[in-house]
């Protein structure tokens, strides 16, 4: 039996025809009828749909039936007569939110999600002013075991967005419901603390959590303390931060605020304001050199990028037998940290221990990464403190800066200039494109005519391109999102795909959609706008290849020698650990 292609129904007496399979919620949107939701989240571009229909906020009436329907997950049928405007619907919706609030701390004024909380916004929107059904409130221990995430399950509304993200999209499987009935809580395997689980700290659970049940570890006070000390405090900002920070101050998504951000960081008191994009260029030098070495027979192919700490932890847990394929290059901000405490220290005549490196990242996994013991020299870490885009936004608000109207300044000399290749690191496909721009020229000795690799751009989960180098066709792939990464690794392991080089980013969309970015609240068009801003920045750069960045050339001439040499292997490369699967 073939189902008809469209169905016609009425919602509040207004007729609407929609493709079959459409939910009542989407049909109502077509009629400009708003049905409030809470657990529902549809990030189309990221292949994420949370349709657990567990919160029951979107319940609507079908005429003639007592039993109500969840608009978010019920598909339209021909001849349905739906009502969203009855007293019963309004009362039910309010009661659902009241019930959720009856088991939720009402400390909104001092909550880290204040102003950013979907539950708070919903309660305000539908006008909950009292709770008619108060009662026992559940209490769970906070999990502050990790360097990246804080789990405060007292604030969980069991929307299960985090579980859908962790299990279905990222295929990490760190989160699951435990307990039952009123005591149900999103927990970990055997209730283990987060740092002992297979969690990769990608932070996508934080990105979709509607409340403050999942938040990043707050490192703001450490930054203020460092700024208040006698030490030389150096800050670097990741490529994806500048295209999202403006959102915190109400600016249009996709606005590139590099200049204002630099000004703001100087006013905060940082001694040096540098660009992680510069370090990304150095990463390209190292990865491209490694790729050239591997193509020339040293080590095995494919080579996988290693800029994403979350992805690195994923392969360490899930594919521990394949740890010889990722590039050994450190991630850009770690490379920066390492250089800051050697190259920069030499230049300014300071001891490494007198320098504090602060990274502003779109990412919560970078917090954990900076604590990896092997990422440092001797007693000190390459990077001392990591804060997210959101945390930087909060600090700037603390200072009372009128961000949108700040003048624009340039990064400091020495490690503040980046090529377009460094800029695009923030988007999925950017790292591999940047590496190709350099590796191609090194391998062929010829200039690259077509600098843009459009096949590797965009939000598709797995992208592929073929590049001919010296008469040999090389297959290049790019995966964003750990679920897609798993698929690519499966293909490599089974031998069904023959790739030369692969970029993997843990977050769907890449760093622009990282777990530390301003909340998108379900509007994934924001991600696309950030992406466009990144490629826009690259397009306007004079120098668009890392090996042509004059500050990079100078660095190698004065300090490092050749890429992928003994010195860079010591300072800029790392090794991986085979971790348990559970």
């Amino acid at each position, binding site marked *: 039996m073939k189902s008809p292609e469209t169905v016609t129904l009425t919602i509040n007496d207004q007729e609407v025809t929609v493709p079959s399979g459409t939910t009542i919620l989407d049909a109502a949107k077509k009629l400009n009828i708003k049905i409030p939701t809470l657990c529902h989240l549809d990030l189309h571009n990221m292949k994420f749909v949370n349709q657990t229909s567990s919160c*029951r906020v979107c319940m609507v009436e079908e005429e003639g039936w007592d039993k109500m329907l969840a608009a978010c997950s019920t598909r339209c049928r021909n001849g349905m007569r739906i009502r969203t405007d009855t007293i019963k619907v309004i009362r039910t919706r309010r009661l659902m939110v009241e019930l959720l609030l009856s088991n939720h701390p009402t400390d909104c004024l001092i909550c880290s999600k204040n102003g950013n909380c979907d539950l708070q916004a919903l309660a305000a929107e539908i006008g909950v002013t009292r709770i008619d059904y108060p009662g026992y409130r559940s209490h769970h221990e906070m999990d502050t075991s990790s360097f990246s995430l804080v789990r405060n399950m007292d604030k969980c509304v069991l929307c299960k967005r985090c579980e859908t993200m962790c299990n279905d999209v990222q295929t990490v499987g760190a989160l699951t419901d435990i307990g*039952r009935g009123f005591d149900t809580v999103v927990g970990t395997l055997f209730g283990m603390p987060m740092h002992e689980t297979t969690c990769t700290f990608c932070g996508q659970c934080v990105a979709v959590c509607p409340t403050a049940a999942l938040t990043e570890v707050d490192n703001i006070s450490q930054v203020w303390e460092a700024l208040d000390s006698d030490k030389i405090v150096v800050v670097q900002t990741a490529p994806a931060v500048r295209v999202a920070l403006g959102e915190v101050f109400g600016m249009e998504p996709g606005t590139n605020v590099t200049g204002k951000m630099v000004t703001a960081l100087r006013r905060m008191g940082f001694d040096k304001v540098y660009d992680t994009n510069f370090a990304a260029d150095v990463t390209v030098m190292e990865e491209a050199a490694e790729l050239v070495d591997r193509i020339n027979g040293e080590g095995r192919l494919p080579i996988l990028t290693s800029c994403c700490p979350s992805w690195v932890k994923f392969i360490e847990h899930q594919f521990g037998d394949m740890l010889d394929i990722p590039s050994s290059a450190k991630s850009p901000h770690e490379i920066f940290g390492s250089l800051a405490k050697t190259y920069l220290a030499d230049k300014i005549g300071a001891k490494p221990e007198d320098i504090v490196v602060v990274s502003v990242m779109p990412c919560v996994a970078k917090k954990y990464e900076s604590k990896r013991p092997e990422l440092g020299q001797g007693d000190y870490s390459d990077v001392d403190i990591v804060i997210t885009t959101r945390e930087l936004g909060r600090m700037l608000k603390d200072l009372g800066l009128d961000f949108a109207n700040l003048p624009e300044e340039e990064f400091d000399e020495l490690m503040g200039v980046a090529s377009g290749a460094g800029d695009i690191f923030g988007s999925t496909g950017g790292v591999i494109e940047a590496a190709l721009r350099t590796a191609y020229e090194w391998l062929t000795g010829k200039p690259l005519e077509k600098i843009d690799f459009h096949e590797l751009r965009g939000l598709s989960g797995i992208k592929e391109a073929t590049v001919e180098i010296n008469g040999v066709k090389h297959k290049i792939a790019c995966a964003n999102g750990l679920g897609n990464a798993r698929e690519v690794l499966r293909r490599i392991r089974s031998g069904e795909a023959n790739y030369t080089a692969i970029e993997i980013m843990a977050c769907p969309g890449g760093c622009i959609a990282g777990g530390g970015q301003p909340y998108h609240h379900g509007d994934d068009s924001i991600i696309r706008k950030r992406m466009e801003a990144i490629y826009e920045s690259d397009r306007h750069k004079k120098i668009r290849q890392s090996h042509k960045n004059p500050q990079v050339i100078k660095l190698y001439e004065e300090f490092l020698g050749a890429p992928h040499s003994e010195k860079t292997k010591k300072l800029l490369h790392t090794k991986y650990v085979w971790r348990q699967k559970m």
Partner: protein
Amino acid sequence: MYNQLRSWQTEYRQEFDKRMAVREDVEVSELGYRLTDSFYAKQYRIALRNSGIIDPLKIEDYIALDGYKALADLLENQIPQADVVAEISESLLRGRGGAGFPTGRKWAEALKHDAEHKFIICNADEGDPGAYMDRNILETDPHCVLEGMAIAGYAVGADFGYIYVRAEYPVAVKRLKIAIAQAEERGLLGKNIMGSDFSFHIELRLGAGAFVCGEGTAMMESIEGRRGLPRVKKYRTAHKGLFGYPTIINNVETLANVHMIMLKGAKWFRSIGTEKSPGTKVFALVGKVANAGLVEVPMGTPLREVVYDIGGGCKDGKELKAVQTGGPSGGCIPTSLIDTTLDFESLAAIGSIMGSGGMVIMDNDDCMVDIARFFMEFTVDESCGKCTPCRIGNKRILEMLERIIAGMGEPRDLRYLKLICETVRDTSLCGLGQSAPNPVLSTMKYFANEYEAHVKEKICPAHVCKGLAQYIILDSCIGCGKCKRNCPVSCITGEIKEKHVIDHDACIKCGACEAACPVHAIEKR
């Protein structure tokens, strides 16, 4: 192979008849043998026809009573699948697990869809407190369920069956395992059954004790290896069910009826019971009843007949107050509706349900508010925690009932209680939540005066709720002072040889005085 089965049948029947001939408690009947005790006189047993008669560990006994004959007939005569489905559809057999969905409709839907695999699941996750119909069938006649599943498998083209059985039923599990092994050994189950093209394997899956896993979609999640949470139903189970394949989920009792329907025909089946609910239903008659036990009667039998004629009325000659049917999701039927007939429609019409067949008898010593609280406590405990109304709403309902029982209820509570119960019923994700408030709603409807007495007059008419109890010292007090000495909060005063008095504000209602009084002069009210 078919002749083999026939010769087994003849051989085993002779031996079986010999054994029966010496038993005094059985007699020959239309469906084989029946038990003769007066408890069974008014019963008509189809699902339980072999219960207490055959030895469940011996496949020979089952074969003796035409066991596996229905399946063999289908295979030998190569009856078209659609005919089998049509027979079941025509019989109007309805699901005995609670909802009463027509079994034939499920089978027809599953037959319609082409798929590489199809599954039959036998729902044996019986979890209603005090209900043990399925357990009895599985323990006393496991083969009739296996045969029912195989027939269903043949009818819809399924190759695999699961019995999802509670781990708390170890005897049933053991006997099922033995029965499956016996049937496979004789070629009555497994690959190429009785030499035909039809293969059907059955495996057990043990439930880990979650009531919600009796809900179909949660059960499939559990069998697939995940946490047993109800799914958002986008497809019918018979279209895309277990592992995404067409799946039939039938209850134990439903499947236990299949064999007889196939042997004796849909017309015979429809001659029993009512027009819309043919056949019989097994009830677990428990509570304050004189003769408790499993009762199988034709649908449409008046409740009065079951309670009085079979059950013998209330224990100790007490007065009947209510009958609770349908387990924790059911409703309480007051004595005034005792003439209601037992079928899906009539029970639904008075706000209760058939459910899986739990039937709890209550007398005047039962407080209906407390009964509602008991069932709410059960569902709150068994909620999976997925959706808001069931997870938090039911908890709040329970808390309100607890407040009322403790004497802290307010008149406005009743209005709020009704509203939240109705909302939970209309908005919960699965049947568990949707039916959880039924015990409260039905008792509020039929025993409103008891609720009002609790919140307005602060008394419990049945003297059950401790928080509302008052201990009174009667005039027969001899003034011995024993109550005073035993009171832990020293709230009793009085001179020796004079009547003592209890300070009700200070009394904690522990009952120590009542127990201590040598002349029974202290009464709980």
